[in-house]
C-alpha cells in the first residue's frame, strides 16, 4: 500500500485537517465558520472528557470520538480549558492533540 489509509469510519478527518493547518500556517487559512465549528467540537469533547455521564442524544459525534481518543490526557484538557477561542489554540497544543490522535491508532 502506498500510504496509510484513512480509517474508513472515523469522523475525525476534518479535525485533523484543521489542527494541521494551525501548525503548518498554510497559504489559505480555513474559513471562520470552520474554525468556530472545530472550536465547538473541542469544547464539547472537553466537556465529555470531564463528565462522561453528560453524554446524550445531542452530543456531537466528533466530540465523542475525540474525547474517547484523548481519555487520560488530563494535562491536555487542562491546557485546553484555558483557551477561549480558536485563535487561542497554539501550534504546540494542536501538535499534541494530533500526536495523541495518531498514537491511539498505532
Amino acid at each position: 500500500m502506498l500510504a496509510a489509509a484513512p480509517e474508513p469510519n472515523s469522523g475525525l478527518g476534518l479535525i485533523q485537517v484543521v489542527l494541521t493547518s494551525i501548525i503548518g500556517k498554510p497559504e489559505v487559512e480555513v474559513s471562520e465558520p470552520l474554525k468556530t465549528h472545530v472550536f465547538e467540537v473541542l469544547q464539547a469533547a472537553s466537556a465529555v472528557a470531564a463528565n462522561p455521564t453528560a453524554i446524550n442524544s445531542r452530543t456531537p459525534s466528533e466530540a465523542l470520538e475525540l474525547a474517547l481518543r484523548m481519555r487520560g490526557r488530563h494535562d491536555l484538557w487542562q491546557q485546553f480549558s484555558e483557551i477561549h477561542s480558536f485563535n487561542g489554540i497554539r501550534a504546540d497544543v494542536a501538535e499534541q492533540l494530533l500526536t495523541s490522535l495518531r498514537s491511539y491508532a498505532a
Partner: protein
Amino acid sequence: MLLKANLRLLLAQLDSLSETPYFTSQLDTYIRELREVLRALLSKVAAQPMAINEGLAHFIAREVWRLTQFLTGSTTKQIPYEVVYAIGKAAAEWGARRLLITTAIVQEANFYFHGSSREFFNSVERELGIKISHQPVQIALPYIYRHKPLFCVPLFHELGHFIDTSNDVVTTSLFSHPENVGPDLPDLPSSEEIARAPDEKRKAWTQVVKSHRAEYFADLISAAYVGEAAHGFLGEFIPNQAVSSSHPSSASRYQLMSDFLSGKPNPILDMFQQTLSTRGLPALAVRFRLPDVDDTFGNVRPCKLESDADIFGAFAAGWGFLSRMNNKPTGLWASLPVEDIERVTNDLIEKSIRNRMISEGWDEATNP
C-alpha cells in the same frame, strides 16, 4: 497538480455515471449534487490564489472519491433491488435523516460497510454552499450473490455498523462501560487484566474491545431483523472462525445472537440497551414477523408480505425453508434437482418482496 487532475477525473466519472439508469430518482439527485461539489471545488482550487484551504480541498476530494466507489454497483443492471429495499426500510427506523442505500458489487467473498463522514456533508454545505439531500448507507456485497437475497442477509449486519457509526453506539459504550470495567468479552482478557496492563498495551486492548463490541452490535442488529438467518448464514459462511483483533470467534458471536433471540440475559446486550437509551435510540428487539411460507413456497408461489416486519421476516422464514428443503425436500420440491432448490427459494423471496414493492408503490401513487 494532482488534486486538480483528480477532481477532473472524478467529475468525468460522475458525468458518465449520471447517464446510467439508476434504481431511484434519489440516486440521480445525489449524483447531481456530488457533481456540483466537484465543480465548485475545482473552481476554488483553480483560482489564483487558491480560494480554499488545501488540506480541506484534499479532504473533500478524498470523500467524494470514496462515495463514488459505491455508485458503480447502484445501476439498474447491478443493484439487488429487493434487498436494498428491505435494508432501506430497516435503516429508516434508526434516524430522522434522509438515507440512500448505495452499493458496490465486489468480486471478493466479503461484505462490508463504509461510513460517510457527516463532517464531509456539513463541510460542503459550509464551504461550498451545496446541500447534499441524502446521507448514503454504503454497502458492498459479492457479485455472485447480487440476485440471491437469502445470501445477502449479512447486509443487515453491515446495516448494524451503519447504525453504530452514525449514532456512536460503541464509542458511547466505552464511556459508560470502559474496557477496564466490563462487561468482559468472550475470547479476550478480562477487564481486570486490561486495567492492569501498561498504558500502551491498554490502548491496544481498547481498540480490540471497540472492534469486538462493534461486531457484536452489528450481529444483534442483524438478528433483530432476520432472526435465525443471521446466525444460519454466518454458520455456513465462516463456520469456525477463531478470534482475531478485529472479530470475536464465530462461537462467541452465535452465543450472543442466540441469547438475544431466546430472551436469555446477557451483559453485553444489557450494555448496548443502556447505550441506545443514552443516545435516544430504540431498544434492541425482534423487528420481524415470520410469514407462513410453508404453504405458499411449498406450492412454488411467492408469499404475501403485509408489513415491513413481514419483509424482514421473509429472510428468516426463507432461510428456514431453504434449509429444510435442502435437507429433506417434500411435496413438489422432492422432484427438483438439488441445485434448483436454492435458486427457486431465492427467486421466491425476490418475487415476494418485489410484489410488496409494487403494491406499496401503487398505494403511494393512488393515495399521494
